[in-house]
């Protein structure tokens, strides 16, 4: 079983109220000079091996469902299992 990650981010020209709020909150907490945009991360456990074909399927799934390409862009990549719960 392998893991494919799909990152979905709001397009730069689209309002990102959550990112804006987080940026503001960080400032108030004393973390200065950080500008945040907030998107989504999907971790997909894919049955079987991640062939090019399989990856193409994930790409299609992202295009069709995981991202709304009117307002979001996405990125698909295979991830070598990182450890969960790093902290």
């Amino acid at each position, binding site marked *: 079983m392998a893991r494919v990650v799909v990152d979905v981010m709001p397009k730069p020209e689209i*309002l990102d109220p959550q990112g804006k709020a987080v940026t503001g909150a960080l400032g108030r907490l004393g973390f200065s000079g950080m500008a945040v945009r907030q998107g989504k991360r999907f971790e997909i456990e894919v049955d079987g091996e991640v062939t090019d074909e399989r990856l193409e399927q994930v790409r299609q799934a992202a295009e069709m469902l995981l991202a*709304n390409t*009117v*307002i979001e862009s996405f990125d698909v990549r295979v991830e070598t299992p990182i450890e969960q719960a790093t902290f």
Partner: protein
Amino acid sequence: MAPRIGVVTFPGSLDDSDALRAVRLAGAEPVPLWHANDTLDGVSAVILPGGFSYGDYLRCGAISRFSPVMDELIKAAGAGMPVLGICNGFQILCEAHLLPGALIRNDVRTFVCKDQAMRVESVDTPWSSHFEQGQEITIVLKNGEGGYVADQGTLDRLEGEGRVVFRYLHGNPNGSYRDIAGISNERGNVVGLMPHPEHNVDPLTGPSLDGTAFFTSVLDFLTAKV
């Protein structure tokens, strides 16, 4: 015979019974439709009601947009059938690309439930013809993701073609671009808006009766056609 107007129930639809009631009070025949059936049951107009279909998980409307009934709806809308998307229904219509743009999280980042003032910007749709151009109305607004966004080109085109149907007044409740509360497709038969007209048809339970005209408008449209 009174025109039959369908209301689709998706898993997680909440205001379907209200929409059916509003249709009935307006004098049309309400027809419940089920998302998993690939038929519109011969209705002459369809309402996609409010709610949290599929929990609003992923993105509002993103999952419902692929329900079997939607294929039929997309075809019918293309052929000119009046379609109204209310709140979650509006989100579904955008996800299905029957309407341009998208709805994102309110800029206030909380769910907002309030009696919202808005202006009727277009009476040239089957869902708004009973209003006066420029009329100020009050309609219940309740959602967490009601901020309407689209790129500048799309917004300019909507404005230019008179497709902004409703605009928020006295303060923008959710960060919608250009205070947009509702829009239509090019042909005008498909209308989506965030506020809930179906909650404004009974003096006992709603803050106004301004929702009634949505339903009588379409009833007239359908009756005239027959």
